[in-house]
């Protein structure tokens, strides 16, 4: 891309697109959580323009190597390899905190009774037998 090339002119060594992408990805993976493009820009060695970082991030997004979410006026970026784990932690937190609250949630699902368990195991065995026949 032209703007990339423009910002790279004058550097002692001309870096390839692949190299830049892997650098950005490395910085994102070292991030404590979702971060902004300027956070990435500050931590990259070398003086890349903000627009360059944005371009690289967008390219990584197309390749599904990163994911992003809008927060106010800026995007927050997260390496795709971290996204699932990050989401799992958030989901866990939600389930743990909301489950403690109120009769509204408790009445929605009742506990599996001990006799339910026996009954279920018997039904499961029955279903398995039926399948083998």
């Amino acid at each position, binding site marked *: 891309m032209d703007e990339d090339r423009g910002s790279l002119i004058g550097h002692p060594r001309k870096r390839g697109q692949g190299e830049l992408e892997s650098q950005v990805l490395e910085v994102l993976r070292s991030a404590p959580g*979702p971060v902004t493009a300027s956070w990435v820009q500050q931590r990259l060695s070398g003086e890349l323009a903000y627009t360059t970082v944005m371009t690289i991030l967008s390219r990584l997004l197309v390749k*599904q190597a990163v*994911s*992003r*979410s809008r927060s106010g006026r800026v995007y927050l970026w*997260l390496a*795709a390899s971290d*996204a*699932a*784990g*990050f*989401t*799992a932690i*958030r*989901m*866990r*937190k*939600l*389930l*743990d905190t*909301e*489950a*403690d*609250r*109120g009769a*509204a*949630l*408790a009445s*929605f*699902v*009742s*506990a*599996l*009774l001990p006799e*339910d*368990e026996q*009954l*279920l*195991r018997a*039904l*499961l065995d*029955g*279903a*398995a037998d*039926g*399948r083998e026949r």
Partner: protein
Amino acid sequence: MGVFVFLPLILPLTALPIARLAEHHLHPRNAVRLLTWISVIMAVCSTLCLGLLFVVGTAQIPGNPLPDNWSDPEVRAAVPFHEEVGTAAVIVLVTVLTTCSTTLRRHLRIRVRAQHALEFVPRDTDLAVLPDENPYAYAVPGTPGRIVVSTGMIDSLAADERRALIAHERSHLANHHHRYLMATRLASCVNPFLRPLQQAVAYSTERWADEEAAHVVGDRRVTARAVARAALVSRHLPAPGFAAFAAPGPVPRRVAALLNPEVLPETWPPAHSPAGLAAMVAAAGTAASALSALNAAVALLLVLKAATPL
């Protein structure tokens, strides 16, 4: 209007036999729709009557903003035991509105938090598999609706059972089951007599999703096994706020229903069958509730109009 004003508050008691019979004899889809409509209509009538009694009740409070004529003796005479009933209605209506708004806010908060938790999941897929050894599976309503399954759940199921699980959750999203659940939950906040309907709708939405999953997978036994296995591995998990795949308690009934032949979705059950009887009792109860609410509303409006000089 007389004692008829109390009928819509009491008539939801007919909900208990209706819920039982519909749950057992109707196709789950029909049961969900019928029971939701009944509970919404009964809840609206019940609230309307509470509102009418509220008007009479507040008329006794000095300095209330309602027209003075509304506390005329003839208005009070329209309701039996107006003093006690009026005061009780004020308290009950305030409680009902508070409970409803709390329930609604909690529901919305959980939805927003869930969508927020999933914001980094790519938008091109509705399925998010999260690395968590605790087994869980949820349908998170929203635009787009998402299915969240933990690796703990995925690992404990066979490949064909996973397909059943995902089909079940997709059915929850595609048929907007959360709307029925929310409507009946609010209705049972309005009138606790409607609670059996809420439980029956909660059970029937699960059955509905089970039936659709069985269609997608093409095997009722596989779906039954998926439900049973998911329930057994997740039995110690806290209660979720969404339509869960493995809602425990009614699970053995769901599994048993899947192991039985399919119930065909008849448009209306024959009148002599228990299901037909249930439907007729339901229709009669709802109609009586609606009529007496209407009667009470019109009567009070006429009394108030007569008392208000124009």
